[in-house]
């Protein structure tokens, strides 16, 4: 029996766009910064609703980040969104110094995250952004699992936080399944399914795959816990430690390189507090390529069956 129902496929970027708009209605200082690809990164709703608060800066991402820092230092709340490969990687030095060292409230949207970007190929698939963003002091890293959650977390990040924030989201329409009523707080993981044999900790699009994997495992009499970690930094140490303690084996799942990303963040908590076997599902130190999202998720081992296989390996190492 499915515990979570897909309300209909939706890209997480639409949730991001809706969250920005909701925050902008509540706070007149919220501004949008555009680097040419406004609609494609979920900022068109805001730009159409508040044209006077949308600043177009062209294809110049380094400048966008610096300008955002200057606006934030002057009391504004700038939201800058572009493809994650540019938002987080091209601008890393500007983010490090102008944003993080100055500890200003700049919201950076990393669109087209993961390999599910598909046909555009390796250049446009953000697979290293979590690693680079989470290593920056003062930075909060948010990775919502579906459109509903993207909207809630984006609004909260803009209105509720005070330092730099990176919000990661995808382009593909993916299952929209979370309950708006469920408690969703930045920094708090969510146990979506109980389980005692193994814990699957997933982020972003991989949360749905993790739920599917848990069902597959259930058919084989393996009880898998599923935890959605939508805030990668600061990470919810309590929920991770509890999972390690109670299930004795962990699988992490992310649409990102396995080195330095979400899985590494979980492993850091596990080895420090309650060492148990950890298996990593993610991109295995390789670039992506062109293809349909489904084909790519299959080829690079990011499907539910891959998570289920990793869960069995983790249990086998107990």
């Amino acid at each position, binding site marked *: 029996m499915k515990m979570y129902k897909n309300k209909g496929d939706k890209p997480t970027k639409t949730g991001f766009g809706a969250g920005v708009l909701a925050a902008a209605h509540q706070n007149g200082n919220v501004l949008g910064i555009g680097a040419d690809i406004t609609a494609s990164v979920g900022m068109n709703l805001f730009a159409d609703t508040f044209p006077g608060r949308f600043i177009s800066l062209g294809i*110049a991402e380094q400048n966008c980040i*610096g*300008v955002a*820092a*200057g*606006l934030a230092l*002057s009391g504004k709340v700038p939201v800058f969104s572009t493809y994650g490969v540019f938002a987080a990687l091209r601008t890393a030095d500007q983010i490090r*110094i102008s944003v993080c060292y100055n500890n200003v409230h700049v919201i950076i949207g990393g669109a087209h995250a993961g390999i599910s970007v598909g046909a555009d190929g390796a250049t446009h698939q953000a697979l290293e952004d979590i690693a680079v963003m989470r290593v920056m002091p003062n930075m909060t890293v948010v990775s919502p699992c579906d459109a509903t959650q993207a909207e809630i977390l984006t609004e909260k990040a803009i209105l509720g936080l005070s330092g730099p924030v990176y919000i990661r989201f995808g382009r593909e329409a993916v299952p929209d399944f979370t309950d708006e009523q469920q408690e969703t707080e930045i920094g708090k993981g969510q146990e979506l399914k109980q389980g005692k044999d193994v814990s699957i900790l997933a982020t972003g699009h991989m949360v749905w795959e993790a739920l599917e994997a848990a069902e597959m495992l259930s058919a084989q009499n393996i009880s898998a816990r599923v935890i959605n970690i939508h805030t990668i930094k600061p990470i919810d140490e309590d929920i991770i430690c509890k999972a390690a303690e109670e299930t004795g084996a962990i699988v992490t799942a992310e649409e990102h390189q396995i080195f330095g990303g979400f899985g590494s963040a979980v492993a850091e908590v596990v080895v420090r507090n309650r060492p148990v076997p950890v298996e990593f599902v993610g991109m295995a130190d390789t670039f992506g390529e062109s293809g349909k999202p489904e084909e790519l998720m299959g080829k690079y081992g990011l499907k539910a069956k891959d998570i289920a296989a990793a869960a069995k390996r983790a249990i086998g190492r107990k």
Partner: protein
Amino acid sequence: MNAVKTKDKLKEIVKTLRVDVVKSLAEAGSGHLGASLGLADVFAVLYFHIMRHDPQNPGWEERDRLILSIGHVAPVYYAALARSGYFSVEELKTLRKLGSRLQGHPGRDHGLPGIELSAGSLGQGLSVAVGMALAAKLDRRSWRVYSIHGDGEMQEGSVWEAAMSAAHHKLDNLTALIDRNFVQIDGETSRVMEIEPLKEKWEAFGWKVFQCDGNDTEALIETYSKARAVAGQPSVIIARTKMGKGVKTIEDDYRWHGKAPSPEEAEDFIKQIEDENV
């Protein structure tokens, strides 16, 4: 604060800043002497004549903002802040030391009053200045943004992204200054990477360009006043300075870009600064 009116008084302040720079660098044992000396006139003119600011209230919303993009000239920045009254002159001795509020490159997280931006990675300050100027425009505020850049910094591509955006958004409340001393760490700018024709580049990017002697306080005051009157476009002052200005024996010597004087050298340098007829 009240602008310093008399020319002689301003020139005395320039000398004081230079002596402060030499003393604090000698005490620190490292740091960037050359451009810190070369920019003393600019800092004196900005902090003691041009800018609206209140050292008793560093966060005053109506203050003019100074964005120092070249964080390595922090010693002259700190000297100007201390002499303006943001903190005690005594504290200049703590430059670059563990636990000091006077970081090697400015860091706001250490709590030094008067610092607008933590900076030091070249090519970022103009973008921040653009963001601030945009904020002032959006809120219809009259405060202005002054930014300071190095000539070597013009080699950073991000400067030109920022330059394009300032003109596009017609930021006439922003005046940048380029410290044109023709040298950088590896030697002459023209040899490391030619940045000329500089005036034409900025004009092509839509800026109003002024050129003046950056070691002449009167010329700087006059040029900043003209820049303030520009409407509809941002302005930039290409200020010709001498690296190491005030210390005759090291003027224009690029080897003093990133070096601190020994105690004996410091004594000699201070004497040269005090004896200089300006």
